């Protein structure tokens, strides 16, 4: 598993990558059905092939989620897509009571998770989606690193067999996963080897971590980067073993802290808290900015990851001034 295969690829949209995967699942499985809330980018190929297999709920996420639960209770396996902030926050009670508690086979696709809607503002940001979904019983949670990863996750989750949330971004993302060798989406995938520190990142922060590691290499630090796409069930043993080899572990995620990658890594690693440096989104009101600018504002971009690595490693006296 390496990032090399993705190096020459262009930024790509998760939605565009996922749409044909969903259509293929609908084609192959007669009990898979799709449903959306006035956002058909994910379901265009399904609608073209068989409009009966797409259910339009309009801009009404609470009804969408409970209605999908009703579909599931009559034997269908729904794939539901909507904008992440509204799917998660507005329909949270339906997600809990109608989907996760009974453990229905529904895959939920949240478009625009994290800060990926950028300048559309905090109404459209969903930095709390991971935390909220983490509080739901029986809910698997995936945070893909790029378009290739998102399609790969979807292939692993379809046809739906249990409740799962997959966070998708809203725009095009830099490629980090080798399409020819995507690896196991439920495992930690090391994209860059290194011996001085380990960065565990999820979602868009994987690209930021790789850029930070590259920057650190220029300064003489040898930093490993691994992608963690599956936040639940979390690969506890694997993280524990991997982290054991490093004096410093940095986590990076485009999400509020509770229930997120940093929380889970800290628990898995155990030991003194200082060993894990957690970079996540805090509660400040965001300025108007692009996705990248917001990652920088919240201190989860390449520059912040670089700082976390160099600051700690210098203090430990492991290296000469690397900057």
């Amino acid at each position: 598993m390496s990032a090399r295969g993705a190096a020459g690829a262009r930024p790509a949209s998760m939605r565009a990558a996922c749409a044909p995967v969903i259509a293929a699942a609908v084609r192959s499985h007669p009990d898979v059905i799709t449903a959306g809330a006035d956002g058909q980018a994910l379901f265009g190929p399904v609608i073209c092939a068989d409009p009966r297999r797409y259910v339009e709920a309009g801009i009404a996420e609470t009804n969408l989620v409970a209605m999908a639960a009703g579909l599931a209770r009559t034997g269908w396996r729904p794939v539901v897509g909507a904008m992440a902030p509204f799917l998660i926050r507005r329909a949270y009670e339906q997600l809990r009571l109608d989907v996760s508690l009974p453990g229905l086979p529904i895959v939920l696709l949240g478009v625009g998770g994290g800060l990926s809607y950028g300048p559309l503002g905090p109404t459209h940001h969903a930095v709390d989606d991971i935390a909220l979904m983490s509080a739901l019983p029986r809910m698997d949670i995936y945070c893909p690193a790029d378009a290739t990863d998102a399609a790969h996750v979807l292939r692993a989750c379809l046809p739906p067999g249990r409740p799962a949330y997959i966070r998708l971004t809203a725009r095009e993302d830099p490629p980090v996963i080798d399409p020819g060798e995507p690896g196991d989406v439920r495992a930690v995938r090391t994209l860059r080897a290194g011996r001085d520190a380990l960065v565990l990142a999820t979602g868009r922060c994987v690209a930021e971590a790789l850029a930070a590691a590259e920057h650190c290499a220029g300064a003489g630090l040898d930093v490993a980067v691994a992608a963690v796409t599956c936040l639940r069930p979390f690969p506890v043993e694997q993280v524990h073993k991997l982290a054991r080899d490093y004096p410093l572990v940095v986590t990076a995620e485009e999400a509020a802290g509770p229930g997120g990658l940093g929380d889970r890594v800290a628990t898995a690693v155990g030991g003194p808290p200082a060993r894990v440096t957690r970079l996540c989104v805090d509660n400040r009101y965001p300025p108007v900015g692009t996705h990248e600018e917001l990652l920088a504002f919240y201190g989860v971009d390449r520059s912040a990851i670089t700082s976390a690595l160099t600051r700690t490693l210098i203090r430990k006296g492991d290296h000469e001034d690397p900057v």
Partner: protein
Amino acid sequence: MSSSAEQPSRHSPSAEHRPVGPADVLAFADRARLRVLRLAAAKPLHVGPALSVIDLLATLRLTVLRDRPGRPDWPDRDRLLLSKGHGAYGLYAVLAESGVLTGDLDRLPGHPADGLPGVEAATGALGHGLSLGCGMALGTRLAGRPGRVVVVTGDGELDEGTNWEAAQFAAHHRLANLVAVVDRNGLQQEGWTEDVLRLEPLADKWRAFGWSVAEADGHDPAAVRSSVTALLDGPGPGVLLAHTVKGRGVSFMENDPGWHMGRLTAEQLSTATKELVARAAARPQVVGA
């Protein structure tokens, strides 16, 4: 769709295996009422909402819904959802009286829980049932199966906005196999619905959302049966505004919001039981019951 074990079957007329008349339904419902009252003497529960909805639930189960005795998970059954989950003990008592639920009812949760025979989904967080029913009705239709869905809501429950999302959805998708029955007892937890948050003109609202509307005395089994059956035979979703009395059947509970939740003293239980027995005695004798 491959999950259903059985092929679609042609249905017999409603409840053909249980020919019952209005008097049978009312006698059945009063036996269910007694179960609720005895439970409410042991612990506080939503007794008023249960008594208001029991005649509706009994009518639907005995004269409208198609099922297979002993097979509550029969895939082609008609589904009954009690969206006003605080009427749980009304549902439990009706299910127990039908033989679907067995064992101690007093161990059951205060709102219908998943996994209980005859309970289609956990309800009680208000405003979920109609959306669940939309999915069930659509899922059944898309699968080419014959099952129909009846969702019983409270009237106060209609304050919840999701109901109206579901109402729009059902009309847009022409869910002819879906009927909502509103337990229009006029009261919600703190008082009259028209004082808490005005619902009227309620029939006009449903019509404006594209639903067929019927109104009936919710304690008249014949009227409820014919209304619901007609709505289920209609071209789109239908709603019955079933005019009921909260606390129906017990004089000191009727129309008293104080009995939304309550516990009966031994003396109150005795009085209530006598009233129900007297009412049953005054009713014309049921032939063949």
